[in-house]
């Protein structure tokens, strides 16, 4: 069974997530800024349930034109989910590890069929 049912669209509001299970694999599915993103729920660090952590916007330094530091702020566009074990942060739209973008979570294709959302468990992205 390559497809795993995630949710009815009406039951999966923007900003929410679901954890689905398939053949011993846990997959976290996020609904974020109009898109759906699915990753294996296993942190690249020590294997924690990274998809179950809080979602925080990316923290950024704000510099003046003369390169002096002004303040920190939260990004308006970029958000991370954070592994609850140790704090590894992941880009919610790519699954890349914020601290080292060479590291990324196994990602999965998400498809909509009618009013339902599915994750394609046999179509994991092989470039990972």
């Amino acid at each position, binding site marked *: 069974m390559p497809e795993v049912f995630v949710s009815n669209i009406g039951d999966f509001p923007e*900003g929410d997530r679901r954890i689905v299970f398939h053949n011993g694999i846990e997959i976290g599915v996020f609904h974020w800024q109009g898109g759906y993103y699915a990753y294996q729920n296993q942190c690249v660090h020590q294997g924690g349930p990274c998809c179950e952590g*809080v*979602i*925080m916007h990316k923290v950024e330094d704000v510099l003046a034109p003369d390169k002096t530091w002004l303040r920190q702020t939260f990004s308006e566009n970029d*958000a991370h989910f954070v592994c*609850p*074990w*140790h*704090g590894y942060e992941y880009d919610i739209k790519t699954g890349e590890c914020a601290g080292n973008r060479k590291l990324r979570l196994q990602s999965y294709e998400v498809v909509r069929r009618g009013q339902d959302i599915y994750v394609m468990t046999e179509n994991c992205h092989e470039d990972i």
Partner: protein
Amino acid sequence: MDLHPNDFRRMSVEEFDTTKLLAHASKQARDRGYDRFPIVDVDSHHYENESMREILEYLDDPVLRQLALASAGPNAKNARIMNTMVGYQDMGGRIPRYGLRSSEKTPPGGDQRDAALTKRWMDAVGVDVAVLFPTPMLALGVHPQVEVEIALSRAYNRWLCERVLSAEPRLVSMLYLPFNDPDATYQFVKEFGEKKGVVGFLITSTRYRPVHANQYMKTYALLEEMRLPIAFHGSYHWHDQAQGMLNRFISVHALGFVWYNMCHLANWIINGIPERFPKLKVMWLESGLAWIPFMMQRFDNEYMMRTSEAPALKKLPSDYMRDMYFASQPMEITDMGLLENTLRVINAETQLVYSSDYPHWDFDLPSTIYDLPFLSETAKRNILGSNANRLFNLKLGAEKLARVA
């Protein structure tokens, strides 16, 4: 229960449950077959502040007890007997267990709460025996009142022995020494050294007392005679002038937890304490491992040129370090080649002991050791359990005490 991320959304979560949080760790334990050998965790923690009312029952000084009880009251906004550190161990809410921990339920009428919660995570990750330490009290060494350090640590030690260690064979501890008072330090070893579950004594390293001061020699002699190890536990202190130059907590944490142990280790070796007490076992906790080859190279190099400044030494500083024990956490796994060399130079197969630091944010699971590709199965088992079993004379057999959740 609500978490507080910075965006508009609040994430509702079910009641906090350590077993659920660590479900992936339990799978690791089953997959790797931890039921085949014992695992000892030489540095774990609980939050003694959540049991402070129980602990204060053991505080003899009536005036200090009244101050402490008043400061623990619900309206005591500006009263506090415990010194606290500026810091952000919870990463601004990114590590939810910091905020949720106090809500975790334990069965009524069962184990004391701290013991029950500790055994819950031990069973989840496969740890059979844990050496348990407090958390806020790690900062007590820089309390401005030495008499408060003595009174609170003695109350804590009495509480831990009577309420926790006496009832739970899987929990042991190296008890807090009030190192700012050398006489009280000696008396603590006398008073608690033979209590059930006491496997050594602890110096919280964040303090400003030199370990080579003559006033401590009687304590080292007593520990050596009693065959009890002494351990130094790293921590940070942002109010320290040197650390005050650092503007982010990551820097304070990364350097602070190593800084004080580097000072104490330097004084310990250069003043020839290992030659004076050759059978005294010494252990270094929560400084990771990367600092060790740095110290070995730095001091060997200078000792060869300035030998006359350390006349008590009969071998290289690094040779004394190889007689010591080092706890693994937080193990810097960023360059496998460097890590392999680090384990080689410290004779890890006999001198390295696994530590988790759970439940703190930078905890290490047993898999950080078990999955190292360059270690033999024997070396893994030594580091995860056998070395500590021998060091603490735990007499652990083949029976697995942890019930992996």
